[in-house]
């Protein structure tokens, strides 16, 4: 089977390893390296002006992640498509496992230990959910999209992991999962009003869900509404983050000069609040520069989607870009006090091995779409 596939590709274009490598967008890779470099600088200052213990590990992990990304980029997208549902099933199994025997931390059960590192299966789930949905809609002709019954399986595909993640409980990731799913639905051509209907249904369900939320989740929502109500408790993080940002001003305090981060006022400064750390030292100018770089990477992903000539690749690229965008948006919105705090890292900048690997796997898949943008990938249903 694999042999046959390979021959098929060769028949179309010259598709050797070298050819594939050529087709990788190295400009995009350079942008990612730039982002990881920003992460290095941020972690260097977070450790008080030294590479240990965060920055050096960060760059090693990125190097490993880069190799992984290129490796994945070389895998034929059609093979990946075939594995979509298998990986989806694996993701669901992992989510179930984490509920049964995962590590408990900060009032939630979301981690699983593997190779000495704690992994969040929900991060993996976001990627494989995109693959599964893309696979489903890849087969969908325009006519079939109009059939409401056709939409029921993909809705369930989204709801199953969302429900499991909610149970951990991890409200933030569950919402992100749903948003990514929604984006794929939209990209696949599901009518706006249908998506709007689902969103409305979720809106109605939200107050009911709030009753079932854990106390710490409610506290997060309440402190978001009025952070100063509990300055030393749950609101502490948001207030301290805002103080650090505000004291950075337009031009910042200078590299390694941020007082709030260095004096440990900033919580989780090497993970969730790394953006604050940077924006304190490099000011609004530095912060907006970083947002600009992230925007270029996101839009780059969207361009890959637009450039792709098959539906599967388009939807995968769209979903993965949305995934990356959600990391960025939630993290920065969180540290600027625009949405409730939730443990979402800034991709490729925050300290953390498993998150970095997951992001790089996502980037590898995105790059695979780009490498295989022109392959013949019939949806297989047109003929029927």
């Amino acid at each position, binding site marked *: 089977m694999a042999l046959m596939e390979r021959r098929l590709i060769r028949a179309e274009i010259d598709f050797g390893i070298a050819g594939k490598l050529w087709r990788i967008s190295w400009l995009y890779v350079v942008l990612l390296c730039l982002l990881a470099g920003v992460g290095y600088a941020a972690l260097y200052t977070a450790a008080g002006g030294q590479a240990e213990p965060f920055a050096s590990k960060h760059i090693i992990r990125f190097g490993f992640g880069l190799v992984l990304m290129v490796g994945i980029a070389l895998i034929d997208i059609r093979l990946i498509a075939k594995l979509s549902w298998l990986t989806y099933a694996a993701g669901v199994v992992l989510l179930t496992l984490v509920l049964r025997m995962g590590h408990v931390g900060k009032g939630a059960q979301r981690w699983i230990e593997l190779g000495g590192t704690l992994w969040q299966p929900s991060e993996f789930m976001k990627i494989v959910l995109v693959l599964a949905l893309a696979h489903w809609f890849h087969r969908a002709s325009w006519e079939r999209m109009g059939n409401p019954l056709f939409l029921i399986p993909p809705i369930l595909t989204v709801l199953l992991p969302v429900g499991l993640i909610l149970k951990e409980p991890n409200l933030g990731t569950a919402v992100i999962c749903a948003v990514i799913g929604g984006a794929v639905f939209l*990209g696949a051509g599901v009518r706006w009003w249908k998506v709007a209907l689902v969103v409305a249904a979720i809106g109605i369900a939200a107050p009911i869900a709030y009753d079932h939320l854990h106390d710490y989740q409610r506290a997060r929502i309440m402190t978001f509404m009025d952070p100063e109500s509990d300055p030393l408790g749950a609101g502490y993080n948001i207030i301290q983050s805002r103080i650090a940002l505000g004291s950075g001003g337009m031009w910042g305090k200078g590299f390694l000069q941020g007082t709030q981060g260095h004096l440990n006022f900033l919580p989780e400064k090497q993970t969730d609040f790394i953006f604050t750390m940077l924006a304190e030292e490099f000011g609004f100018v530095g912060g907006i520069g970083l947002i600009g770089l992230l925007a270029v990477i*996101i*839009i780059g992903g969207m361009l890959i989607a*637009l450039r792709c000539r098959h*539906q599967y690749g388009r939807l995968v690229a769209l979903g993965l870009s*949305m995934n990356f965008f959600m990391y960025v948006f939630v993290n920065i919105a969180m540290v*600027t006090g625009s949405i409730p705090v939730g443990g979402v890292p800034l991709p490729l900048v925050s300290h953390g091995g498993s998150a970095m690997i997951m992001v790089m796997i996502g980037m590898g898949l995105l790059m695979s779409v780009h490498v295989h943008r022109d392959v013949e990938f019939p949806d297989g249903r047109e003929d029927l």
Partner: protein
Amino acid sequence: MKRESKRTGVFTRRALLIAGGQLAALGYLGARLYQVQVEEGARYSTLAEANRISTRLIAPPRGRLLDRFGTVIAGNRQNWRALLIAEQADDVGVTLDAFARYIPLADHERARIDRELRRRRRYIPIILREFLTWEDMARIEVNAPELPGVMVDVGTTRQYPLGPQLAHVVGYVAPPNEADAAEDTMLALPGMRVGRAGMERTHDAILRGRAGAVQLEVNAVGRVIRELDRQEGTQGRDVTLTIDAALQTQVLGRLGEESASAVVMDARNGEVLAMATTPSFDPSLFNSGISQAQWVEWTNNRRAPLINKAASGLYAPGSTYKMVVALAGLEAKAITVNDRVNCPGYLDYGDRRYHCWSKGGHGMMDLRGALKNSCDVYFYEVARRTGIDKMAAMSNRFGLGTKLAVDLPGTRQGFVPTRAWRAGQGKAWNIGDTIVCGIGQGYLQLSPLALATMTARLATGRAVDPHVTRAIAGAAVPGGRPEDWPSMGVPERQLAAVREGMWAVVNEQGGTAPIAKLEIPGVQMAGKTGSVQVRNVTREQREKGYKSENLPWELRPHALFVAFAPYDAPRYAVALVVEHGNAGSAAAAPIGRDIMTDVLTRDPAHRVEPLSPRVAGRN
């Protein structure tokens, strides 16, 4: 393929829309960042500075209270205490249990510790136990490995070397409550105390001083990175009192087991040399908080150890009030010094008969004789002629029933009735009430301190106010010199007549208190006794041959005595009350004599004015 291109078209449109949405969202974040960093930047910069710099207060030691000769009345001593720093303990509960094995903690102590553990941040030390003995400390240090987070350190605590002897004047200190801590942040520091009564309370701010401050750069958990700035606070200053500690001890010893109080005053300037109240209490007990049982015992004790009877105890003045009645009568021209009144043993007014203490009567009495014999009928008549309002006005001039400018908290001004007061109650004043007031009974309520003030003013003719503060941080407070006090404006001739009557009480054959005659050659004392019933004597009792010493203790009359000496160059005034002591002449006068003897022999070198030759001549 047409369908395929339609699908592609839809995707392209939507992907562009989504990308636009993403850019808009990121743009929003940029705007938000601008708002937080640039627009509100200044505000947050200030907050950041406050965040980084923590101001820690350093409490200065509390100032001391000294007696007039510099003897320490209230000082500080080292206080070894066991502290717990929660963040250094692996398990606070285990550490506390281990601690309790070596130094038992009562339930209320454990509750307080738990409360502070919840309230304070984990790096702030919490006091487990104060006033550790050497054995306690040894036990803690030896078992230190079992007690992670526990440390022993030294603070200061209040010490009262004279113990109960000056409790009522000095007052006491106690741990601050929430309201105190809100007023002065320094009070939140461990081991701080607030003056709660007496001079500790009057001069609390002076004694406490102002906290110094260290500005420290700290990290988010409060650990000190480095010291930025240091401001020394104001030391608590010493306050010198007018009290003579040695005299106080003597006076207290003389009062003995009675429920009594005595005030010794410098008649020239109102300085209180001794203010004794028995029984007393140990003020240092309040330092660490007193037990419920102790409190109940004190409040249920009918001798009321917590009350400063000298300043807050109110009694009818009885015959000690007669001098004021006489002066009111003289000023109102109701009588003259030489006018005589016949005393048949009673005075009939309206349908009531007012008895003299002498059943057979004193016969014809002038002012001198009436004071000497304490003739009630004479003063009934003077009061009737003078009227209550003029008596009240004269009382006020002598510091009775009026607010005294005294620096001791809790002083009660007592009460002298007026017609206006009675009218305020919606009732008409009875002449009968005036008559009763003539012998210091009825509505009159006065404290020993007020009576001492009255006596001092009688003796010197100056409107001195009693005070206990002599100097603050070595600088004398105003009021120490006799010239600081204005003249009473009472004619010297009238004062002299009253003084002479008081001289006769003590020094003449037939006076009511010859027992009080001083045995110091060349020095004479003038005085007046008083006995006041705490309940009315009925006619039936009187006919049965009523004897007050046969009554139960709490129904016996109070015994009072006021005096000044030396007679011709008045220097000291004494007033004392022995609760339920029966007759003033028997129970109070001898104590007054002994106190005055002690005062005069103790301090002759300090006397400025020479003894008058006239006194010597009389002898």
